[in-house]
């Protein structure tokens, strides 16, 4: 369950941002998690609940924005069906993932003096 190590890295980043902005508390942390990122959103939320105690995130809500996978043709940009072969139906080129592998910290709401 690598979600625990993802949360560990997330809290370290939030701590660094809070220090840099002179925050006295963090209210909300927003992340973006892709469908094909390998991170499970529910497990991430559970791990966050366990880890945030006694950290800068103790009072901070976690918002998780899901991103669905989208495959496109590398050559002609055509969007490809999610269930089919990962080859363009028009030109036969291999697909590339246009979105859906994100593991991103996108926003922090913090309280300053």
């Amino acid at each position, binding site marked *: *369950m*690598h979600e625990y*190590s*993802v949360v560990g*890295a*997330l809290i*370290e*980043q939030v701590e660094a*941002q809070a220090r840099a*902005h002179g*925050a006295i508390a963090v*209210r*909300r942390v927003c*992340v973006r998690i892709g469908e*094909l*990122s*390998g*991170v499970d959103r529910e497990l991430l939320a559970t791990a966050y609940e366990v880890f945030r105690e006694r950290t800068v995130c103790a009072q901070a809500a976690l918002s998780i924005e899901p991103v669905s996978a989208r*495959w496109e043709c*590398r050559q002609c940009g055509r969007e490809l069906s999610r*269930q*089919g*072969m*990962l*080859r363009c139906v028009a030109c036969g080129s*291999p*697909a*590339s*993932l246009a979105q859906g592998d994100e*593991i*991103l*910290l*996108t*926003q*922090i*709401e*913090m*309280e*300053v*003096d």
Partner: protein
Amino acid sequence: MCQTCGCGDERVVTVNLHERILKANDSAARHNREHFAAAGVLAINLMGSPGSGKTALIEATARALGSQGLKIAALSGDLATDHDGERLRAAGIPAATVTTGTACHLDADLVHRGLHEIAWQDRDVLFVENVGNLVCPAVYDLGQRANVVALAVTEGEDKPLKYPVMFRSADVVLLTKADLLPHLPDIRVQSFADALAKVMPQSRLLVISARNNQGMAEWLSWLDDRLAESRANSR
């Protein structure tokens, strides 16, 4: 001022970012990659289920490459034991085990620490044998040039569909234990290939047996191509 909830509280600031949560691992991986390039060593991240034949594959590859005058080293990730490391050392391969405790995967920092345990710089190929697991290892860049996923013929033809993140990350998938195929009348290699094509854009499946060396020539030829790329890159 708080932009999100509209509370108008001037003590609340909203900071917008676009940061990879695993950026510390990414920079450790970049560091490893620089080490590998400087030493001219091809680093392979070998992943797969427990029991998919990863250690046997490294042993067979060492034998085959050895006859071409090429040398390998190995780092094995293991939750609790040094068994794989012992096996590899017994086969004459410089090898160390990175014991991960409860962690289900290797990360770039663990690999970096493991590199201090073995003489790898004079080798041609370094195999990083990841913890047996089809989920977590796919998320962490270790600094490797290529990802290889071992999938045993007995694991089931739908494995790529069940673990799309792992198989999408693969540069090549090795269908291992092919010597068992004559005993598995219901298993079709084409079904593995079809499943793989739905999750891996440039799907590449090699059918291989570490026991009878079936498919070994194709695997060595794939490794040769990666070695050539790696050497061109480190010049």
